[in-house]
């Protein structure tokens, strides 16, 4: 039965060719804007997040903070409480925790970490640095250190270190040179530099010194313990939820990238909200466009509807004819629009380049985005057609034939 309504609908659309093309281009324009702006914002956010997380783990696990336990429990109210200093606290029973975390289905990578403060000394020069004791294989799954290596290699045997480019410059170090690391408790270690990295973040390139887990443990007097675990999650934006769950479940302190980059998150969220708003209003105007064109079409086709009804076409069929028209307009227009949006994106990618001629960021023109936009626009067409279609179905055939 639907085949017949389909045929009538397409014939009507084809008969009003100019009208159909006009509204289809209107829809196309709207959809192109939606596709382009979505791809732009998603791409931009993706780039920002990628840059941010290029130097950060998704979740960092540390031992829980020391809290003050009042020795009096008789309801005394304390006027002044001196907070405790937080010393570096090792994670208890870490090999077991590590194994358990490796089995978590929401996590992609797990990497043990030993961190602490020290001085790097070469000749007369000394610099404050952060010691990071890592397992290179596990750690590169968290932060792509190997990709950012400027010289040497990522090799961390005992007494070997990988440092940042700026620290190397400050101390006049090249791969193969030696330097001393001294901690506040006066332990020292002479290391040979096997690699120099550049993450592009000045502070990190100045401070980070990578050692093997064992060297760092010895240097910081940790005796086989670790101070943190870096985690990579499978779904980026679930990091906060996952970190809270891990925190409650394992009794450790877990901080996600989302809570340690609160400002970034706020910016991303408001960006997403404004995009959603733009998409919503564009969609609404598309819907109004379809509705008004179909409302006119109903008036134009009054006579035809009356004749069809006189010949025994049911109200349902008339309804279907106009719903199909709305859906088709939405679909046809949005397919055109998706192409337009992709074209806009390509053009943008061509012009928006940095000085080196590299694109500033990748547009996220996914087939998923195009498919979902097309489906939503088609549904919008159907919904927009509902009112005119209902009016067409309720048309009095006598009036329609007489005055049409």
């Amino acid at each position, binding site marked *: 039965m639907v085949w017949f309504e389909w045929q009538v609908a397409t*014939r009507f659309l084809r008969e009003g060719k100019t009208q159909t093309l006009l509204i289809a281009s209107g829809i196309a324009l709207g959809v192109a804007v939606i596709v382009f702006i979505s791809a732009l914002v998603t791409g931009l956010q993706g780039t920002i997040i990628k840059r941010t997380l290029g130097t950060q783990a998704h979740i960092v696990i540390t031992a829980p903070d020391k809290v003050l336990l009042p020795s009096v429990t008789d309801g005394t109210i304390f006027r002044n409480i001196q907070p405790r200093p937080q010393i570096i606290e090792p994670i208890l029973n870490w090999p077991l925790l590590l194994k358990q975390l490796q089995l978590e289905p929401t996590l992609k990578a797990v990497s043990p970490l030993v961190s602490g403060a020290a001085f790097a000394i070469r000749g007369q020069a000394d610099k404050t640095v952060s010691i990071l004791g890592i397992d290179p294989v596990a750690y590169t799954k968290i932060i792509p250190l190997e990709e950012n290596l400027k010289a040497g290699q990522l090799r961390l045997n005992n007494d070997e270190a990988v440092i940042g480019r700026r620290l190397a410059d400050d101390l006049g170090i090249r791969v193969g040179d030696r330097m001393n690391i001294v901690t506040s408790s006066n332990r020292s270690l002479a290391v040979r530099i096997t690699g120099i990295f550049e993450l592009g973040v000045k502070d990190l390139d100045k401070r980070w010194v990578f050692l093997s887990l064992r060297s760092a443990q010895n240097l910081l007097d940790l005796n086989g313990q670790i101070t943190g675990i870096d985690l990579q999650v499978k779904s980026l934006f679930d990091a906060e939820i996952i970190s809270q769950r891990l925190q409650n479940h394992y009794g450790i302190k877990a901080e996600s990238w989302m809570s340690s980059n609160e400002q970034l998150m706020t910016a991303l969220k408001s960006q997403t909200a404004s995009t959603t708003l733009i998409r919503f209003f564009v969609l609404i105007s598309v819907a109004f466009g379809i509705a008004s064109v179909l409302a006119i079409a109903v008036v134009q086709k009054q006579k035809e509807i009356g004749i069809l009804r*006189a*010949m*025994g076409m*049911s109200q349902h069929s008339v309804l279907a004819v106009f719903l199909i028209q709305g859906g088709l307009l939405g679909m046809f227009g949005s397919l055109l629009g998706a192409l337009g949006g992709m074209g806009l994106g390509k053009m943008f990618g061509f012009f928006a380049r940095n000085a080196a001629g590299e694109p500033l960021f990748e547009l996220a023109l996914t087939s998923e985005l195009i498919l979902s936009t097309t489906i939503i626009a088609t549904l919008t067409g159907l919904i927009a057609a509902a009112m005119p279609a209902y009016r067409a179905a309720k048309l009095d055939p006598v009036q329609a034939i007489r005055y049409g």
Partner: protein
Amino acid sequence: MTDVLKVEKLNRYYGEGDTQTHVLKDVSFSLKKGEFTALVGQSGSGKSTLLNLIGLLEQPSSGEIYLTEQKISTLSEQQRTQLRNHALGFVFQFHHLLSAFTAIENIMMPLKIRGIAENKLRPRAQSLLAKVGLENYAERYPTQLSGGQQQRVAIVRALMTQPALVLADEPTGNLDTQTADSIFTLLRQINQEDGTAFLIVTHDTNLAARCDRQLILKDGVLL
């Protein structure tokens, strides 16, 4: 012979209160199978209203209509729509063909509404077109046909479903005398060959006189 149509004490009012007009007053008559009847009357006499009521496009204020022995007042909107499709054929004064469809598609329309596939309808549509001398015009659009040709297509469309009764509202009103005459002859011929009953609204007393029977409506009363 069975009655194709029976109308009993039909009344139709328009409007309410002081402005209420009584358009049809106790109209009763019946049409037998294969009867070729003219409905005459001046404009404003209630002809169109009566035709719309019989065509199930409007509902009477009171009275009853039996179409192919089915009592209309008890039918739902859906059932009336279906009965209209099965029992009735319409020929309007202005051909009222659908401009987006070719002649043959227009002819097949009432049966396509029923959901019958086009390829099953084509042979019959083609032979009906041949019967009215339009076998070479099947793929033309209505705007590419002359007034007489359009009206013949419209008549063929009304006959496509082999209805018991064809309702024709001034079928020749918009045509020159010669064409009007040929259209009337065609209707008469179909009536005699297929035994289809016709109820033809007309101004033309000449044409009316050539019918089996004349129903004369004056101020809403059947004389």
